């Protein structure tokens, strides 16, 4: 290994060195300074004449800005418009109000008048926009209060608030993981997490969906490599990124086993709780609450405030040591205007509700989730449902794929359209197929609303049944 080197001795040696030596060293130092200061010249090996240059430039024909503009009949250009207030029922302009099984308002708190009142009260004081990033007079009392409340709610030291759900995880991950680090992520993590992983420039290792054994193998392999090169291992941070309930599959992650792996292989564990915030666990605190795992086992929890919290934005909670770092390093935090105060105030009210009646809300919601699961699972031989029975997100897929993604999508889209005429607002799960790390199968994403009644759930089953019959038989 490297030899011993003592600053003091070197300094002494320098004093005793002869003048020639010093002169030589001086020249070397000058050379280095010159190397730093010299302007980088473009390679002069091939020199083109002005005319040749002009010709080359004139010859260049760039592609149009948008090489293949989508056709006019592309479904994404004809999204449905909602009239009036989105809630348990949606008005899509078809005449009757449709039962909403498509938006992520699991607890339906957006329809609670007190949430709206809280937002309005804040609007009267602060106006709409905050007109500045958090650093430059964009921090209002409301933001601080919401952060404190979130930290208390999750039993953590600190929380940090973002103004957009998507940017939360996409900014939080690259704040910690840098190039040279390793991130282990489930292959089904949502797209915002994938963007965060990509932005970190770390090495990303995907393990098979919810496959703890596969993850263990990968970690074992890594620890073998680490033993060979302990120096590198000592500088490589390792992270594990999972979702509590995967929005792309509806499955829950096996957290207790992941925590064991985290302890054994010294990983830092980040969980995205966008789906489970407010919908899981006896105190609706999410998956740590559900499995009764102390918060210190998890390094950071990320979630958005756009689903259960019926507002906008996102947040991360964890220890002070971890979270405070984002205030200088989370790009989406530092460089973006802060969340409009009225939306933060609405979230505070949601926390009030969750704290006072959260336990009952979760029981009701999970009951509805189970009922829907039951209805959907015996729906038709053509469709299968995936997702945990207590998950508020479920996916309906074709049991037998046609083998072509677009064809599958078209069948499902037709089912969605037919369901509309039977009084249901459903939606296809939309993906950017080319950019997804491991594209899920096309599906109809069903979300469960706490306020659905048993009759409505029966109606859901019947309506989908009819739609499937009409499309596929």
């Amino acid at each position: 290994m490297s030899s011993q080197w003592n600053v003091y001795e070197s300094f002494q040696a320098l004093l005793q060195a002869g003048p020639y030596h010093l002169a030589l060293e001086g020249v070397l130092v000058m050379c280095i300074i010159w190397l730093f200061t010299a302007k980088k010249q473009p390679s002069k090996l091939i020199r083109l004449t002005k005319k040749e240059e002009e010709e080359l430039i004139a010859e260049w024909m760039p592609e149009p800005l948008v090489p293949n503009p989508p056709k006019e009949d592309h479904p994404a250009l004809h999204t449905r418009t909602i009239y009036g207030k989105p809630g348990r029922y949606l008005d899509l302009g078809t005449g009757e109000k449709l039962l909403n099984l498509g938006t992520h308002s699991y607890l339906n708190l957006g329809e609670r008048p007190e949430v709206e009142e809280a937002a309005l009260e804040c609007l009267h004081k602060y106006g709409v926009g905050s007109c500045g990033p958090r650093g430059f007079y964009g921090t209002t009392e409301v933001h601080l209060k919401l952060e404190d409340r979130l930290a208390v709610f999750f039993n953590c030291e600190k929380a940090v608030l973002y103004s957009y759900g998507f940017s939360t995880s996409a900014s939080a991950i690259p704040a910690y993981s840098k190039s040279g680090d390793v991130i282990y992520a489930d292959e089904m993590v949502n797209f915002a997490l994938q963007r965060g992983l990509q932005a970190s420039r770390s090495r990303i290792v995907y393990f098979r969906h919810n496959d703890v054994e596969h993850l263990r193998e990968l970690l074992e392999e890594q620890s073998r490599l680490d033993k060979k090169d302990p120096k590198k291992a000592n500088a490589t941070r390792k992270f594990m990124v999972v979702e509590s309930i995967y929005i792309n599959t509806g499955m829950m992650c096996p957290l207790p086993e992941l925590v064991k792996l985290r302890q054994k292989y010294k990983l830092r564990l980040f969980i995205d709780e966008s789906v489970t915030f407010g919908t899981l666990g006896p105190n609706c605190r999410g998956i740590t609450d559900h499995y009764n795992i102390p918060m210190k086992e998890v390094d950071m929890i990320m979630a958005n405030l756009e689903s259960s919290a019926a507002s906008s934005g996102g947040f991360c909670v964890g220890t002070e040591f971890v979270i405070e770092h984002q205030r200088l390093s989370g790009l989406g935090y530092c460089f973006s205007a802060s969340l409009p105060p009225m939306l933060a105030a609405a979230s505070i009210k949601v926390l009030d509700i969750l704290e006072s009646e959260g336990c009952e809300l979760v029981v009701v919601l999970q009951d509805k989730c189970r009922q829907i699961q039951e209805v959907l699972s015996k729906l038709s031989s053509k469709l299968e449902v995936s997702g945990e029975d207590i998950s508020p997100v479920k996916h309906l897929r074709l049991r037998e794929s046609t083998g072509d993604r677009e064809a599958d999508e078209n069948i499902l889209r037709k089912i969605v359209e037919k369901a509309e005429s039977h009084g249901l607002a459903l939606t296809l799960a939309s993906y950017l197929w080319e950019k997804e790390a491991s594209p899920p199968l096309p599906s109809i994403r069903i979300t469960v609303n706490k306020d659905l009644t048993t009759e409505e759930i029966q109606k859901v089953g019947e309506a989908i049944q009819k739609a499937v019959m009409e499309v596929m038989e």
Partner: protein
Amino acid sequence: MVAHTELPAQVPHEKILNNKHFERCNNEKTPVNSAGGTKGKVHHQNGTTISTQNGYASPGYENSNVPNKKKIHQKEEECSIFVAFFTFLSYGVLLLVGHIKEFFSRATTKEKNREDIEECSPFTNFTIYLSYGVLFFVGYVKEFFYPPSTKEKNREGYVPLYIGFESFYTRNVYRRIQDCWNRTICSVPGAEIDLMERYTPDYGWTMKLTGKIIKCINAGSYNYLGFAENKGPCHDAAEHTTKEVGITTSSPRMELGTLEIHRELEQLVIEFLGVEDAITFGMGFATNVLNLPSLLDPSCLVLSDEFNHASLILGLRLSGATVKVFRHNNSEDLEKKLREALICGHPRTHRPWKKAIIVVEGIYSMEGSICDLPNFVRIKKKYKTYLYVDEAHSIGALGPNGGGVVDYYGVDPKEVDIQMGTFTKSFGAAGGYIAGSKDLINHLRVTSHAQIYASSMSPPVAQQIITSMSIIMGKKGSGEGRRRIQQLSRNVKYFRQRLRQMGFIVYGHDDSPVVPMILYLIPKISMFVRELTKRGVAGVGVGFPATKITGGRMRFCLSAAHTKEMLDKILEEVDEVGYLCGCHYSSFRDSEPVEW
């Protein structure tokens, strides 16, 4: 702003250890792995003094390029006072070398459109480095005697989460002045704001509210047209919308998140900007980050201004395109770099580029400069590239009709291929838009991440934009919009001229509502901000790493809500504080009275 090279993130954190004499462990970031037995090994990268200087100092030079297998990332242990001294010295040397380099290369290219920037004197420069040097030196000495205590619990034996230098800077420089940022307000960020007074019980580590409120004139928020209001038509409309439509959609635009109000908003944006089509998003920052990857791919060339906003840089990085950085607002440099790149083709494959895009901003939020759009349009046409203009700060704030930099120069909106902007600033709301040709917007509707995965804009926010935009366009408010635009432009001219006249160095264009005033030194920034607050003016101080290391500044954002009396009050206080800390750097003084 982050620099185009990864700044603090890449700082190497090796330390030279002298284990014979000092084996004290610095536990701050590095719980010692007791089983490891590696502590106390002595490392140096290449075995020479020079390389150690190299390894320490320059945040800008990525150390990973050193192809030395011996490179060791090891536990941070306490270093000897010699090493600390040499470290400090090497910072000084490198900073000086960098400065000399910049000094020479600056002389070759003229900075255009940055309005008579006065060079700072060598003495001032020296004091800047000296002040950093002293701060670092004191920091080293302090941490030598009082090693920062470990804060992380339950993670023994883990690789430290943070890199050495970054946290050293935070602990020893940023901590001392952090009270100048992240201030809490408890009122609408209009012409006047209520700041909540804070105190620190532990020398800047934490801040606590005292409960007292300081009334200040607000020269810090981006409230250019004064639409941050808690009464008036915008507020009423937002209230009405909240009651009618609620505050959330809980769904992306592609699925079930498109409300009637979103369509209305997009129609209005199209009309306002005079473009074929437009698309809106829920967050301004994300508008850049999530859409650039849909427009670019790795075989594209991007020419990006050196002071572009972090969101543009992140978006470009995510897209994987090749990015060439040109000098700030310098069309000659742009043309030179563009020609070079077009002639050479892709650096790896040597194929011609698929397409080339020039990415600039309308008003630069830290420099106050207005982009030299006519020249960029000329170059764009000449070389068949595309032009992306980020009008985050300029939309609403510039131009006779508030139409941004395009309107200001009277350029045909169709000449700018991609117009992007945010609603946070002039419209007093949140979110962003992209406008351009029908094909472009249709493409984004199908491929934008924000369209497919991110929730749509909150209805009251959309309503605020609709109402404020209608007022600006003159559809509502009987001339109120025009009055605000004129008020802002008069405010800007008056304020900038007066500030110059007092002998401050002011950056940026004469018509730009962002007014950066140069202070150079970090301690002066904090003094200025604190003194101004005491006198009832809230301004923003900006220093390294958001600016160059020699570019510490105060930044004032003017608003149409400011009256002449308010501006006079700000100017008076700024002048006084300027004398207190010696910031009248400009040699140019003009005693002619300035008319409002």
